[in-house]
């Protein structure tokens, strides 16, 4: 009970933060994906900012959040997106026994630093009430622009050099002149003449009764999926819906309606291959407003109604 009575709010806060920080730091090292590591690092940095506030450093509290979590971590995330989120580490040890030696080194460094840095605390905690009496920001500014003014000016040179260096490193020299719009159009027509490649825009993705997203392929007039109507990136990732399964419920409904005989007149005999492709671009292009097109749109209207019925059931 005596021990409980001496526990203060500051101590509880400190230990809660310590638990979060150490777990987040370990998770940063252990996380397989780099984005998760960045998230854990952000947690550690925000918790550190709170520790600075507790340690009477309100200026550093703000700078920690603005510069570290705001600027530096966003830069990390930008580069992660540039380099590719999917690049995860290989788990093969290239150096034999690397993990064991790393663990031994971890323990050794921990003990050595604890003894060495811990010996730096000689006097009892003086506190910053006197130093912060004129305001923390004013106190830091007085030191920065008097005693440390040359170091401050050196950081200006450092920042300019860093910005220039980043620009030089990230710059890519253009090896050949940029193509104009006329040249691009000429190339497209030449490809059409020589290889028969379609010069117009690619077909849009399919519009089905219940799906109309970029990952649903459009159907060609013969009922097969149009391969160029979906992005190759999505195709490589394997997140493309199968067009036939999407069209299947509509086809079932249409067949059921035809079985009733109520809308027999509207559905043409050879219409089976158009089922489910009510609004695909190829259909619209094929039926420019003639009689067949009217029949198509009627069939599509029936299809929509039928789908509603099915949903109600």
């Amino acid at each position: 009970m005596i021990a409980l009575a001496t526990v203060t709010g500051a101590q509880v806060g400190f230990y809660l933060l310590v638990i979060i920080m150490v777990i987040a730091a370990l998770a940063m090292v252990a996380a397989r994906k780099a984005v998760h590591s960045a998230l854990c690092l952000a947690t550690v940095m925000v918790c550190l900012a709170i520790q600075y506030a507790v340690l009477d450093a309100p200026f550093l509290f703000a700078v920690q959040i603005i510069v570290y979590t705001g600027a530096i971590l966003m830069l990390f995330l930008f580069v992660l997106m540039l380099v590719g989120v999917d690049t995860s580490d290989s788990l093969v040890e290239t150096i034999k026994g690397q993990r064991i030696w790393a663990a031994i080194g971890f323990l050794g460094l921990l003990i050595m630093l604890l003894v060495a840095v811990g010996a730096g605390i000689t006097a009892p905690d003086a506190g910053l009430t006197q130093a912060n009496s004129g305001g923390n920001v004013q106190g830091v500014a007085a030191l920065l622009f008097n005693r440390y003014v040359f170091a401050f000016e050196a950081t200006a040179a450092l920042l300019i050099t860093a910005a220039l260096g980043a620009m030089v490193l990230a710059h890519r020299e253009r090896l050949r002149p940029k193509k104009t719009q006329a040249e691009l159009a000429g190339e497209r027509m030449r490809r059409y003449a020589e290889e028969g490649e379609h010069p117009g825009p690619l077909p849009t993705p399919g519009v089905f009764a219940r799906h109309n997203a970029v990952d649903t392929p459009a159907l060609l007039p013969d009922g097969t999926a149009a391969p160029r109507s979906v992005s190759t990136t999505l195709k490589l990732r394997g997140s493309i819906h199968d067009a036939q399964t999407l069209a299947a419920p509509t086809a079932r409904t249409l067949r059921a309606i035809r079985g009733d005989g109520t809308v027999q007149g509207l559905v043409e005999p050879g219409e089976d291959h158009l089922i489910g492709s009510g609004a695909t671009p190829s259909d619209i292009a094929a039926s420019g407003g003639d009689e067949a097109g009217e029949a198509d749109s009627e069939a599509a209207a029936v299809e929509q109604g039928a789908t509603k019925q099915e949903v109600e059931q």
Partner: protein
Amino acid sequence: MSPAHYIVLSVILFTIGALGFTLRRNAIVAFMCVELMLNAANLALVTFSHSYGNLDGQVAAFFVMVVAAAEVVVGLAIIVSIYRTRRSSSVDDINLLKH
């Protein structure tokens, strides 16, 4: 809270950062571990500032932050330019000087 608590926390964070730097092969994650070590050093500086009762430690922590910002900018630019030529961000693949 005595300053020893904060120093112990700072040392733990620093060694976790060092452990990650030796273990991880992804250049960006290794770089994040370096950032963690810098942050741990900052915590020690701020703690000593509080312990000795003057603001010099906080000014030093501020300079560490400035240098870290510059270092991150250049380091990430190097990682991006290496990725452009070698299509990899693993530190194992960067052994061109060996051959």
